[in-house]
């Protein structure tokens, strides 16, 4: 196992019981991710993208094999240790944004920092900086219900990046967005990846996202069928 790998999975297997049968969601997946990567897990629904993200994000544990994230073996982490790993080093972006409806934009972003023991001033500075990155500094008082889908996802990105984690895991981040918003979001994430050297791993089957990836890992029926470095095309002339 190389020490330089930020994330390493070794023969990762995840099996879910479905009634009397078993569903193999991940089938001996071995991958490595380095710091600063902008990678995507690509494949149809049920190919194991989200399962892999969940295990890497310490939200789930493997059935066999193991994932080592920032030197921590996911399968041997207690609930507390897994929570600590997520708290400090991993940010999540979800398809449905998962913003807390009763909090305003500022509070939704701030919540990521509340467990880190920062002072009010430090938190305020970081939250405002994150909101500047996603160009929502003027909407701090707005509630999620008052924002568009694209704005909500930008808040979710700000919430994920505000603690400057080493890894951001984004599960279908553009699935609920129109093309224009999707590209805006992706441009923002590319900028953050460059600026903060944060590792981004996407689970997606959205072509718009795939155009921005520098590494494309194709999954099918829980297996890695292709792992390739690609040239990002970005929004391009005629997306």
């Amino acid at each position: 196992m190389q020490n330089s790998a930020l994330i390493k999975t070794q023969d990762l297997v995840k099996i879910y019981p479905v009634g009397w049968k078993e569903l193999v969601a991940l089938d001996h997946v071995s991958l490595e991710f380095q710091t600063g990567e902008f990678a995507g897990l690509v494949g149809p629904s049920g190919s194991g993208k989200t399962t892999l993200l969940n295990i890497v994000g310490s939200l789930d544990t493997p059935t066999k094999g193991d994932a080592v994230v920032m030197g921590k073996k996911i399968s041997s982490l207690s609930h507390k240790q897994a929570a600590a790993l997520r708290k400090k080093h991993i940010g999540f972006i979800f398809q449905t944004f998962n913003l807390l409806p009763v909090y305003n934009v500022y509070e939704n972003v701030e919540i990521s920092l509340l467990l880190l023991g920062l002072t009010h001033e430090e938190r305020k500075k970081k939250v405002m900086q994150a909101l500047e990155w996603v160009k929502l500094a003027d909407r701090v008082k707005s509630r999620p219900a008052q924002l568009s889908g694209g704005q909500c996802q930008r808040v979710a990105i700000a919430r994920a990046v505000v603690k400057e984690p080493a890894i951001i895991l984004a599960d279908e981040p553009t699935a609920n967005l129109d093309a224009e918003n999707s590209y805006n979001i992706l441009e923002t994430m590319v900028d953050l990846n460059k600026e903060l050297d944060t590792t981004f791993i996407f689970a997606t089957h959205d072509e718009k996202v795939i155009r921005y990836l520098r590494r494309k890992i194709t999954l099918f029926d829980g297996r890695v069928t292709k792992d390739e470095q690609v040239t990002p095309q970005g929004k391009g002339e005629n997306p």
Partner: protein
Amino acid sequence: MTLFKLALRNLLGAGLRTWLNVVVLSFSFVVIIWMQGVLKGMNNQAVTSLVDAEYAGGQFWHENYDPYDPLSLQDAHGKLPDELKDLVEKEKATPVLIIQGTAYPEGRMTTLLIKGIDPDQKIISLPSFFLNEKTGEIPAVIGNRMSENTGLKAGDTVTLRWRDVNGTFDARDALIVQVMRTTVQSIDQGQIWIPLDKLRELSDMEEEATLLIVEKNILDPPQVNGWEFKSLDFLVKDITQLVKTKTSGSSIFYVILLLLAMLAIFDTQVLSLFRRKKEIGTLMAMGFTRAKIIGLFTIEGAMHAVLAALVAALYGIPFLIWFAKTGWPIPESMDSYGFALGEKIFPVYGAGLVVGTTLLILLVTTLVSYLPTRKIAKLKPTDALRGKIS
């Protein structure tokens, strides 16, 4: 601190749902404190009235005296020993002689207790000074209940019949010089008060008494042969017990009230867990431990009680103060409770009652808020994020 802040944000953000629970819970606060206050006030009034009108600082009873056995009265009298006579002379005690008798108001016959008391006594609040009135007959004072039951009014004459110390029947007319309004049934119902000297003379029980009432706050009552000192605690024991029984009976009402409020909190918590599964998952993804999330939800539930206490204070304090000043008029039927009460009950709210009730509700609310959240401990982050209901 973080959890408190988040809990408060969540609560205030939940809007109407929170305030409905808070209002219901605040109602419990106010009603429980009010009811307890009324019962405490009732107890205080009952004891105070009894002490003022009948018991003062305690009583010496003749060794044969048993207030629950009227037949014992025949033998429950005796000359006061020197130690007790000394108290009477120093105006620290007043003797009462009690004999059984019969009255014939408006031609009807009614048995009663004829009680003799010194008209000039100042030990109890009984208006015995009316017995100083000079009349051709025996001056007598009765209570308002006795007056209602017998139809006797001030200025009426009634024939009394009794047996003297030798068992010989005798009878005389008594003039009702005053009908006293009293809240204490035990100096009223079935009794007639006449001057002590007169009763001693009529019953041929010179210098004798059945009991001796001593002044309030008497220190170190003497030990006397043939006479037993009954302390105030002993004398008010029955009424305290009665109030206690009524208190526990009434507590059923506020337990039901508390249960209803707790049901609302419990329901809200259970609903929250279902509706906010995704939120729980998101918090887990952000690094909140399960214990922290359980803490957050429990604090949220418990904070209903804190907000309810504030809301209750807002309308409850003025209401309770107003009520304590105005009092609660007692219906006539309450007379049969056996309590010595005034025309109104004035609630008494002690600091212990308010703090105790607040802590009790806070404790119960916290417990009820915690119980449903234990489910979180078994919740997988991935299931929570999917909003999966288990």
